[in-house]
């Protein structure tokens, strides 16, 4: 079994809102704060743009973890978007947990445009969690195999 020798490289999708967290990720870069390359960022206008279906799609396609980052409560560029995101994700995550996708594989974090450090720390800790959880195999059989 070769798999055992190979270091587990998780696949992690991060949805970042354009105004706070995406800028926070930029700042992490500007300050050269490392976090694993396993994290791939998708830019959305607001955390409330993240449809639960996007997250399901990511898991369906083999993601090991999904994280949603938005502005801090009260600081949303669109006033209330992050509150909607928080409520939707709370529901979704408990449903996913019920389906066997552990709570640790999903996360919502508030990262402001000034928090490059926090962004890097958040990603490091999230990747660490996913690594300890291991590969997300629960959906394997149901996955739509892409050519």
């Amino acid at each position, binding site marked *: 079994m070769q798999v055992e020798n190979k270091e587990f490289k998780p696949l992690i999708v991060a949805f970042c809102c354009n105004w706070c967290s995406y*800028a926070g990720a*930029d700042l992490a870069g500007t300050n050269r704060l*490392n976090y694993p*390359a396993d994290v*791939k960022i998708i830019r959305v206008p607001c955390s409330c*743009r993240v449809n639960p279906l996007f997250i399901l799609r990511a898991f369906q*396609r083999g993601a090991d973890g999904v994280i949603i980052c938005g502005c801090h409560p009260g600081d949303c560029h*669109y*006033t209330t978007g992050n509150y909607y995101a928080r409520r939707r994700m709370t529901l979704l995550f408990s449903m996913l947990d019920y389906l066997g996708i552990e709570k640790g594989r999903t996360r919502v974090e508030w990262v402001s445009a000034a928090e490059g450090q926090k962004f890097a720390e958040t990603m490091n800790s999230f990747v660490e969690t996913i690594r300890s959880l291991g590969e997300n195999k629960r959906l394997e059989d149901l996955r739509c195999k*892409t050519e």
Partner: protein
Amino acid sequence: MQRIGVFVCWCGSNIAGTVDVKQVAEMLKHEPGVVFSTDYQYMCSESGQNLIKDAIKEYDLTGVVVCSCSPRMHENTFRKAAASVGLNPYMVEIANIREQCSWIHKDMPVGTAKAVILGRAAVAKVHLNAPLTAGESPVAKRALVIGGGIAGIQTALDIAEAGFPVDIVEKSPTIGGKMAQLDKTFPTLDCAACILTPKMVEAAQQEKINIYAYSEVDSVKGFVGNFDVTIRRKARFVKEDLCTGCGLCTEKCPMKKVPNEFNCGMDNRSAIYIPFAQAVPKVATIDASYCIKKKTGKCGLCSTVCGVGAIDYDQKDEFIEQKYGAIVVATGFEPISVEKFDEFAYSQSPDVVTSLEYERLMNAAGPTSGTLLRPSDKQHPHTIVFVQCVGSRCDAKNEKGKQYCSKVCCMYTAKHAMLTREKYPDTDVYVFYIDVRTPGKNFDEFYRRAVEDYGVHYIKGMVGKVVPENGKLKVQASDLLANEQLHIDADMVVLAAAIEPDKSARPLATMLTASMDTNDFFTEAHPKLRPVESPTAGVFLSGMCQGPKDIPDTVSQASACAAKVIGLLSKDKLTGNPCVAHSDELLCNGCSSCEKVCPYGAITYADKEFRMPDRTTAVRRVAQVNPAVCQGCGACTVACPSGAMDLYGFSNQQIMAEVDAICK
């Protein structure tokens, strides 16, 4: 199928140092739809941009992916370059391989692999991009200012100065607001009336300004550039165009026992009244709840004495409809009711007054003609105790007070104390303070003068109880520095009541879909960088309605607000952000879920006819997004249960494609 060009930037060694740019370009060349792929040292430079432009022309590209720095840096640059050669700017996508790749990864193979994946995601997205055109809407070149205090007046004057017509809507019979009630202003001690009334007259005479006094905003519809507003002109029972403001009616009116709000109820006025001598417009108003004619049908004396026939007992409220491009909120503030803090005995003794009442007692036009007399027995007070922070800086659990600092009290209390000592040197003046907060030009100097030159006793501590007894106010207080409890027999106690937003602000905010904080202050679009705009486009904030501030701050903000309004009104058309929501009317079931989550009120419903398969027609209620109002957050797209709502530029399919590309 799109014809896509990929351009990988080195950013000198910033990207090329940890990402093998040549390999990225090579790998992406094999992505479906990619017909051209190259790398270059500085893609944002003029020659880099020319490289893109030339490729667009030469390879007839329909989409462009630039692998470079963050889109927050140069997305606009590359979009403009594309537009200059005829490619729709929204066909350009950026893969961020600097901030989110080369700068955070040290290992070349790791960085390169990630850059390729990010490039693939961008290519996948471009495949689904569609040309977008920003919508345009005309701008009604007229501004509405709600509130006629110093903030509203200043904003209106500045807008009018730039040549745009302005309407001021003021709920009371005259403009002037709270500043008209003040005596002197800190820290210069110039008289408030002397500097305010010329501005009131200027506003009345400025031909671009139209004052609707004794009026209220009844309803607001529409959006930035195109607000439809209904204004209710409350019946004064006096014809404004005929009344000359001679005041004869107010002298003859037999009903003279009406508490005079201009003097905080400390004296009386007649039922037909002009609030104060310099009122603008100087027109009488009948207070129907006190007028004998209105209540019993008998009297009519004012009508008899009026030489111009201005009295009209049957006048009705009038409604005016007007279109505005911009709305300015300048609804101001009021002091809180201090009755709930009755340990200070405000409701038990007339000699316990609020600072605004004290202001009137010091004012030459006030109930005592400027001689300081205590209300109970009209005698000169010899000992006066000022209490700061009454209802300000309270804990959230304390339901009586406000959590914020009211900001102006420290300075006006210093002013009152100083003026009192100046006019009546035989008076002992005590100020009980928690902190003295005097940031502002010449503010601390002013406060120090009160202490050092005028001998005001500033005591660090608080008053705990005021007991009226035998004509005195027995004040029990703490002196924290001396670690003593003080007992002072005072003649007057003056309470620096916290300020709160005017009661009219909350319903107005609902009408405007403008957001407010928990204290009912209007929220600004950005607390630092957009402090005079509401998050709702086309709504601007002036003065105390946004937070506590003194007159200099208010006037600065009022002018800043005017500058923003002028900037908006000087445009003929507004170009919107094309990345807005849109609804597929065939899918929409009219459930209103989207409308409920929209923070901007951008979604409305219309009944539309649809051709059914059997050639009949059916009318269904469907959502419609106003692109001029939508800000593109996307909350509605997720709330929509039927999948009818989608967002241009960040569509469901585009984001899914990115997910797929990353998870491949």
